[in-house]
């Protein structure tokens, strides 16, 4: 029999970025809030202090701040009909574990989505016609527009102290910024990062080709900054240990630095660590969530009653938790019906490397997670898709994120994989190679979804979540088109050699690509095709809310964190101003 805790107003599943945002705002609104975090407490002092923090083996290779897959993992397959197998080691993505979650060990690349992404389906139909896309490209509108979200973007960027060069202030294109971004009401709170030599070389070549390079917006804060709550963020020292590390300099915007201290200071807020949430309990008659059941640090099952439950876990955990709790209709790829687990998307990444063979000194160790120069000329709203047969796009950037010894050893194609030849090549190319990356959008496909595995269970005896994913045809066309452009820039950079990594294989869960898993509990306007409404409130249980990138109907060609944070503030606003006064569905289907 589960232990029953004293009821609270709000139970947050997870202790990461969105939980910190909601915890602070709801606690200040007078609600009693408990955040249930499966991992332990993490603070800048003492957890992130050097020299132990700069342990690449522990944090990068052995994933000290990522999910423990021996407790719970997911199974994976490329296609419906294959046998899904458990992911026994982390690879393609690294869900965070511990207070702060993924926002502790992120790189800090903080992009807004272009306005077109939020109304993608209607935008495509209006601009290219109804028959432009195959019906398998199940893109959707979000139910929210960029203009509605803009104030929340601005506020979130102020909270995080984002550093960047604005490209469009109230419709006025700014020199030096991204001319393709949506109009912003205010510039970034901090100036952009100093650009690396690799970024300079990339920007020079891109500008020669007529593209418009600009510094990547960054949560590695560039000066001494005090955010609206009074948190002090320090300047980044470009040490090159951002992802997957915690920042010892108070310089990378993370919940511990920017938000959590103010939530923790509030008596209404409790961060309950080592609490592994198993399921959301709900009343089948009244159609409301009644609380969550979790396993605490002693291994006993605990029931936490709550009048409101918010899923703030990692992207694919949220829909899987709903499936395990039997909330909503699971998505079925055979009939293409159901909503929970639908429209799982990822990110379409390709890369290129330019080898200067000793001619340039790149100094890759002078780096920061979001230190980069980018062009946005090939994002969705920036160019014409007519005749190309696909939708989407992404930015191309030269990032200088790290020169760490285990991680960073670029060598040209044809180099031996080990031994003397490899070592000589690493020595030759370490300091004179520039890597380019294409960060492409991901369109949904009816066969890509999250479900529940019929075979494997986790340490608590629950069925594992099952991921079925492969790169859809639309994204392959898109990646080929933009990668060609990227190869053109790489050519223009004038290296001695170059290599281009094309997207020419099935999706593999083994090599690290990115932790931008999105979808599965998507937002929208229709309960038949979405899980939550435009306020991120569940269509089925009005007191259940879903945060994070799991609500993205499709993933844009950008990093998701800025949008995740903005949506969390958008939802918090709706909860406090509308829902708490009159609990019930905020949108009538």
């Amino acid at each position, binding site marked *: 029999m589960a232990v029953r805790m004293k009821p609270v107003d709000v139970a947050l599943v997870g202790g990461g970025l969105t939980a910190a945002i909601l915890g602070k705002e709801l606690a200040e609104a007078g609600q009693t809030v408990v955040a249930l975090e499966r991992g332990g407490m993490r603070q*800048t*002092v*003492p957890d992130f*202090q*050097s*020299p132990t923090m700069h342990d690449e083996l522990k944090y990068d290779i052995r994933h000290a701040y990522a999910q423990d897959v021996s407790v719970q993992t997911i199974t994976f397959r490329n296609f419906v009909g294959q046998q899904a197998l458990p992911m026994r080691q982390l690879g393609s993505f690294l869900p965070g574990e511990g207070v702060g979650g993924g926002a502790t060990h992120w790189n800090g690349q903080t992009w807004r989505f272009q306005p077109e992404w939020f109304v993608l389906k209607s935008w495509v139909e209006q601009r290219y016609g109804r028959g432009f896309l195959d019906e398998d490209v199940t893109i959707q509108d979000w139910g929210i527009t960029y203009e509605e979200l803009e104030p929340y973007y601005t506020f979130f960027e102020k909270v995080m102290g984002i550093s960047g060069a604005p490209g469009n202030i109230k419709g006025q294109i700014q020199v030096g910024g991204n001319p393709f971004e949506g109009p912003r009401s205010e510039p970034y709170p901090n100036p952009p990062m*100093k650009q690396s030599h690799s970024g300079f070389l990339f920007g020079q070549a891109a500008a020669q080709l007529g593209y418009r390079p600009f510094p990547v917006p960054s949560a590695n804060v*560039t*000066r*001494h900054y005090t955010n609206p709550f009074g948190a*002090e963020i*320090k*300047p*980044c*020292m470009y*040490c090159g240990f951002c992802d997957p590390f915690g920042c*010892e*300099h*108070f310089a990378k915007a993370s919940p511990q630095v920017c938000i959590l201290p103010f939530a923790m200071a509030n008596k209404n807020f409790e961060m309950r660590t080592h609490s592994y949430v198993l399921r959301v309990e709900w009343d089948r008659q009244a159609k409301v969530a009644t609380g969550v059941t979790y396993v605490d640090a002693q291994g006993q099952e605990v029931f936490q009653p709550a009048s409101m439950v918010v899923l703030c876990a990692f992207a694919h955990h949220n829909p899987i938790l709903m499936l395990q709790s039997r909330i909503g209709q699971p998505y079925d790829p055979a009939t293409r019906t159901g909503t929970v687990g639908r429209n799982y998307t990822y990110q379409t990444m390709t890369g290129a490397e330019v080898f200067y063979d000793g001619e340039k000194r790149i100094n890759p160790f002078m780096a920061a997670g979001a230190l980069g120069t980018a062009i946005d000329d090939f994002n969705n709203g920036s160019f014409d898709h007519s005749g190309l047969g696909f939708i989407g796009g992404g930015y191309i950037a030269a990032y200088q994120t790290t020169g760490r010894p285990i991680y960073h050893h670029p060598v040209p194609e044809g180099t031996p994989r080990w031994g003397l030849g490899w070592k000589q090549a690493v020595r030759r190319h370490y300091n004179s190679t520039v890597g380019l990356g294409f960060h492409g959008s991901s369109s949904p496909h009816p066969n890509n979804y999250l479900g529940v595995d019929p075979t494997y269970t986790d340490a608590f005896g629950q069925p594992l979540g099952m991921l079925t994913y492969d790169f859809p045809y639309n994204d392959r066309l898109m990646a080929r088109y933009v990668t060609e452009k990227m190869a053109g820039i790489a050519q223009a950079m004038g290296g001695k050699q170059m290599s281009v990594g094309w997207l020419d294989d099935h999706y593999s869960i083994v090599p690290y690509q990115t932790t931008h898993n999105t979808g599965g509990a998507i937002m929208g306007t229709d309960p038949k095709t979405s899980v939550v409404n435009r306020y991120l409130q569940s269509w089925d249980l009005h007191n259940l809310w879903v945060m994070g990138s799991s609500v993205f109907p499709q993933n844009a060609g950008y990093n998701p964190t800025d949008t995740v944070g903005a949506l969390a503030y958008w939802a918090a606003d709706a909860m406090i101003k509308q829902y708490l006064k009159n609990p019930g569905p905020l949108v009538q289907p």
Partner: protein
Amino acid sequence: MIRAVQIGAAATAAIVITSAALSQSPLGLSDQREPNHEADPNRGRFITIGGMFAEQRIGCVQCHGVDGAGNSSGAFPRLTDQAGWYLYKSLRDYASGLRPSYIMAPIARTLTPQQMEDVAAYYASIKDAPYPAEPRADVQVRQIGGAIAAIGMPSQGVPACDGCHGPNGVGQAPIYPYLGGQFAPYLQHQLMLWKQGRRDGDPMNIMELIAKAMTEEQIRAVSLYYASVRPKDVIPQDARYAPGGGRSPAVQPTHSPGQNPTDVGAVQRPEPGRGSVVVPGTEPAGPPAPTMEPPLGLPRRPLPPNSLPPYLSPPVDERPRGTTTTTGAPTRSQP
């Protein structure tokens, strides 16, 4: 002949118009970087002892020692084994005025960038200078200093020193100097300069913000802590480290070359020998100019008008204060 006059006029104009006086060397050494030049520690060694032909009347060695061991006056830090780039940047910062010093500024302005590199390379290449003896400080003070070094003071917004300067303050070449084994009065003096807003040259003002967030007691504690640790393993039996610096009570220092025997312990201000530091151009001007930078707390004074040799224009720092600098001095026009 006409050609020579033109060149001379152009050179004079360059001195007057720009502050690129750095390109004019008063020394007999080449003032231009040779193609594919590399910093040469041997050339640097000549400069440290007063120039190849003793034309530079102040040698670095007079204060910092041949081995760069420095002393505990607070004015003469330990240079041995410091990162070469850091030493070079320090000279640039003294020349440009980002770092205030009545001693180092005129000296640094007599050096060309090439000579700065050479001197930096020389002191960076020395590995075996003795460490100073541990300062006499209360264990509690050292513990406080050690805690500040290891984890900072989050409540005051002070990050851990070790985060950038390395565990035990070993330094992280090229930009973060070592602190372990540095003299406490020097560290204290530099932090106080930052606290008073008199020193610049730190990237993104990070050190200024840190120093301003610390109390004077905390500055003293962390300085004493770093003076009492050693950036590398010191083997007491190793003769190189033993004099004055050996930790083993079995090895008592009998002789500490390059050091004042009274250097042990807290802040001291030894009287410099009169004439030991001569600023070029000041010798005939009556009583000797103040030769010591006051260690702590005294207000900034403008440079006396005769403290610069006539062939040097006064320092002009055109950069706005508080911005990051990567090179200390205004760039010279390249040939």
